[in-house]
């Protein structure tokens, strides 16, 4: 059985090995960029069908950002939206025969998590300055400094292991069932995989947004556990 951790090297550029995941990532990036460019090239007050679909996506994104964190969506729309769309398309790319989703590779997920980590720092510094950002580690009191630093690392780590584990286990289980039972048997599992891919993309984007929002709010209000703060406004009365 092939290890899900070994990369599939397609070809080499000098000393750099180009794996299948990288080529798939390039293809997805090209599709997203060209698609976005083609749709937004002629924007009109009377939207065409494609423009209406895009507007629906952006509006849904804005609503989700506002609902989950209660901040104005404009500065975060681009990053969070790109993150969500990329992970969604990457998860669903396993539908094409012969293509492994790049998110089933540790490297892609680690890169995405590093992006989130850096963007949390960037938005935090932009909102409250370097001093305010450093001071946010000392909330509620300076005893918590090591714990806060540890938390900011581990939550990103858990985020990328979550995405990797979910997508990889889907691909892995489909491979096992297909080799044990036959060609058409894993179809229900693939349908479940579609749902898991959507939910994981949503979770990744929402968690990134929650982390960014907690950094932006800074010392004013700390989020002790971001996982629990997913739906702060939706408690039953």
């Amino acid at each position, binding site marked *: 059985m092939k290890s899900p951790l070994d990369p599939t090297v397609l070809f080499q550029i000098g000393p750099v090995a180009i794996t299948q995941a990288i080529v798939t990532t390039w293809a997805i990036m090209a599709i997203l960029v060209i698609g976005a460019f083609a749709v937004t090239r002629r924007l009109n007050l009377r939207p065409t069908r494609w423009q209406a679909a895009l507007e629906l996506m952006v509006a849904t994104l804005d609503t989700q950002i506002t609902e989950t964190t209660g901040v104005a969506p404009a500065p975060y729309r681009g990053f969070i939206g790109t993150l969500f769309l990329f992970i969604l398309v990457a998860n669903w790319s396993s539908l094409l025969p012969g293509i492994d989703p790049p998110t089933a590779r540790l490297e892609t997920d680690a890169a995405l998590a590093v992006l989130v980590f850096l963007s949390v720092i960037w938005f935090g510094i932009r909102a409250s300055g370097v001093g305010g950002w450093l001071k946010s580690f000392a909330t509620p009191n300076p005893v918590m400094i090591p714990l806060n630093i540890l938390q900011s690392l581990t939550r990103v780590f858990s985020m990328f292991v979550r995405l990797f*584990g979910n997508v990889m*286990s889907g691909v892995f289980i489909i491979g096992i069932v297909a080799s044990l039972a036959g060609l058409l048997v894993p179809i229900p599992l693939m349908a479940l995989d579609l749902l898991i891919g959507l939910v994981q993309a949503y979770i990744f984007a929402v968690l990134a947004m929650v982390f960014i929002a907690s950094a932006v709010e800074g010392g004013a209000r700390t989020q002790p556990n971001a996982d629990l703060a*997913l739906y702060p406004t939706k408690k039953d009365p």
Partner: protein
Amino acid sequence: MDYALLASIFCAAFAVAFGAIGPALAEGRAVAAALDAIARQPDAANTISRTLFVGLAMIETTAIYCLVIALLLLFANPLLA
């Protein structure tokens, strides 16, 4: 006899087996609570089921961590290299 190999195979199986117990119980409780909530307030079914799916995925992640550990033991074990 290679004891490190045997031990890592057994540990991989145990990791998945015992790691699945907690999330299974938790998912059962979560679904039961969500069904209860939907039965009380059918109007809020959309919000409840969306929150339920996200919560289930979060809970399931615990089991997936165990699966990742098991696969690390089987395929990327530093002791067997």
